[in-house]
């Protein structure tokens, strides 16, 4: 049974039909990526999974249990952490306070939270150097690192990453994707939304291609990366 299973999902923004009957599955311990152009509905999918948006139709199952209609805090408590688009860090709070808020929904003991916090800081040593700094003073790459680290402190079973490469220098993008793979190898399932199809397909196990609210293609990431139309449309190939 997949960890996350979406079927027949329809989402509207007012009159705009943003997602049309999406089917998608994320197997445990995999990285699944959702690629596509601007306005294809990638972020909308993530927001619907984490409960920030409500679908009109369709089902979302986590571990076989429906999470449609649950408020975001319930979904977080069930093990879904969302690093939102544009990072959504709390700029006027310190890095440390940001991480604390990441652990907000956890009800287990302090020691366990501290262990996960340590683990996140080991992944992102840059953040440890800046614990007492206001998050707004970090560079773009560091802010993205913080957004991911903050989501990890919640100890998610499913991590939703929304465009982690957005606006970052190629070298930083590489580092971030390297860490994404590390997080996955440590056991966290990841649903990754990206415009940078090249990098995303490089780290993912499976990929879905989204075009104006519809899934037009899904396959093993490797096959997608080598398929002609994906290369043409998203990888700048010939």
């Amino acid at each position, binding site marked *: 049974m997949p960890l996350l299973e979406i079927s027949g999902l329809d989402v509207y923004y007012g009159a705009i039909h943003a997602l049309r009957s999406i089917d998608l599955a994320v197997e445990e311990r995999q990285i699944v990526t959702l690629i596509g152009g601007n306005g294809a509905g990638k972020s909308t999918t993530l927001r619907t999974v*984490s409960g*920030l948006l409500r679908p009109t139709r369709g089902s979302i199952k986590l571990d076989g249990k429906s999470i449609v209609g649950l*408020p*975001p*805090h319930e*979904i*977080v*408590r069930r093990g879904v*952490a*969302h690093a*939102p688009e544009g990072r*959504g*860090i*709390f*700029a*006027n*709070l310190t890095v*440390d*306070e940001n991480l*604390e*808020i*990441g652990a*907000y*929904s956890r009800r287990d003991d*302090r*020691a366990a939270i*501290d262990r996960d*916090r*340590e683990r996140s800081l080991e992944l992102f040593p840059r953040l440890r*150097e*800046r*614990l*007492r*700094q206001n998050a707004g003073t970090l560079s773009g790459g560091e802010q993205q690192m913080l957004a991911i680290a*903050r989501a990890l402190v*919640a100890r998610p079973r499913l991590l939703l990453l929304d465009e982690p490469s957005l606006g970052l220098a190629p070298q930083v993008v590489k580092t971030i994707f390297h860490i994404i793979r590390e997080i996955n190898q440590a056991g966290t399932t990841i649903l990754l939304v990206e415009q940078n199809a090249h990098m995303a397909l490089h780290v993912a196990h499976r990929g879905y291609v989204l075009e104006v609210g519809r899934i037009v293609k899904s396959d093993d990431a490797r096959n997608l990366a080598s398929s002609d139309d994906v290369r043409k449309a998203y990888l700048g190939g010939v």
Partner: protein
Amino acid sequence: MAGTTERGRDLQPGRAAATLSSVLPLVIGIAAAYVLHTYVKPRLDPFYAKVLLDIGINVILAVSLSLVNGFTGQFSIGHAGFMAVGGYTAATITYYGSHRLWGNAQFHGGFLSWTQANDLFEGTWLGGGDLLFPLACLAGGLVAAGMGYVVGLPSLRLRGDYLAIVTLGFGEIVRVIIQRTDDVLYDAEEIQQAGLWTCVTHVGGALGFTGLPFYTSLFWTWLFVAITLIVAYRLKESTHGRAFLSIREDEIAAEAMGIVTTSYKVRAFVLSAFFAGVAGSLFAHQVGTTLNPRELGFQKSFDIVIMVVLGGMGSISGSVLAAVVLTVLPEVLRTFSEYRMIVYALLLILMMILRPQGLLGLRELWDAWASRRRPKATGAG
């Protein structure tokens, strides 16, 4: 509170230490209020004692508003409305309650509630009024908190300017309703006969609630200041406090972290209104003031907003500092007589130009001090 500042190697305090650390500030607060009342007041000119009292009330108001405007990033400009609700509730209780209990609305307190010069005090050290007054303050706070809940609810759907208009409207509604009430009952016998509804509707209207006993001593005022500060500070350092702050910073991200933003916004309003109600109760029972709806109009609300903005949004010590400065400043500027408010306004404009983030910005006084002491503890590279 160990561990919130030095994370990592967490010192889990024992139960005894935890109890001590939570009770100790309150004990210190009570002691400080007592010293202020017993030893400092007799050495002060009555005028300065009055300023000290005003500072206390303004500190409570500024810090409580800072919970909504500063911590949670909502924009409320109806704080005086909560103050009025609390003040009138407490006044009704002390005035009509005194009549019921003692047959008149004279002062029935002891030394701690004594508002005249200390050496004029005679009577027992504790009086029935010493119980009635703090209970009335708490009741004022609770009724105001109930109103905070009612006003907090629309804040779930409104933000920014729209919320500001709702809160402004609330303050005005409270003021107008109070203005429409009937004259205070003076006849002892009539009061004995009066039911609750009669008492509540006879609170003086536009003329003000006259004949209240004076209980607002430096002791009670600064005791409530201490309680307000302890609550605000402990809140800020807690998970709940960070939840408030995260809503201010980025509401969507806060929601994605699993914070129930709607419930936190209402909580902020309720808590903030509670302390505003207490401050209103203190305000009502001061020597030489008549509790009057005009005093608690939107001018008062704006004064409090200015304190919070000037102190720095979300900074408790900043709000305290601003409350002190803005209470003292008009007194100091008395030498300018009729130009006083112009100079005051100019100073405010200047301060906002020079320090738009407020006196202390978002941080606390001790944070600034701590980071100066170990400037590169984090080794920025």
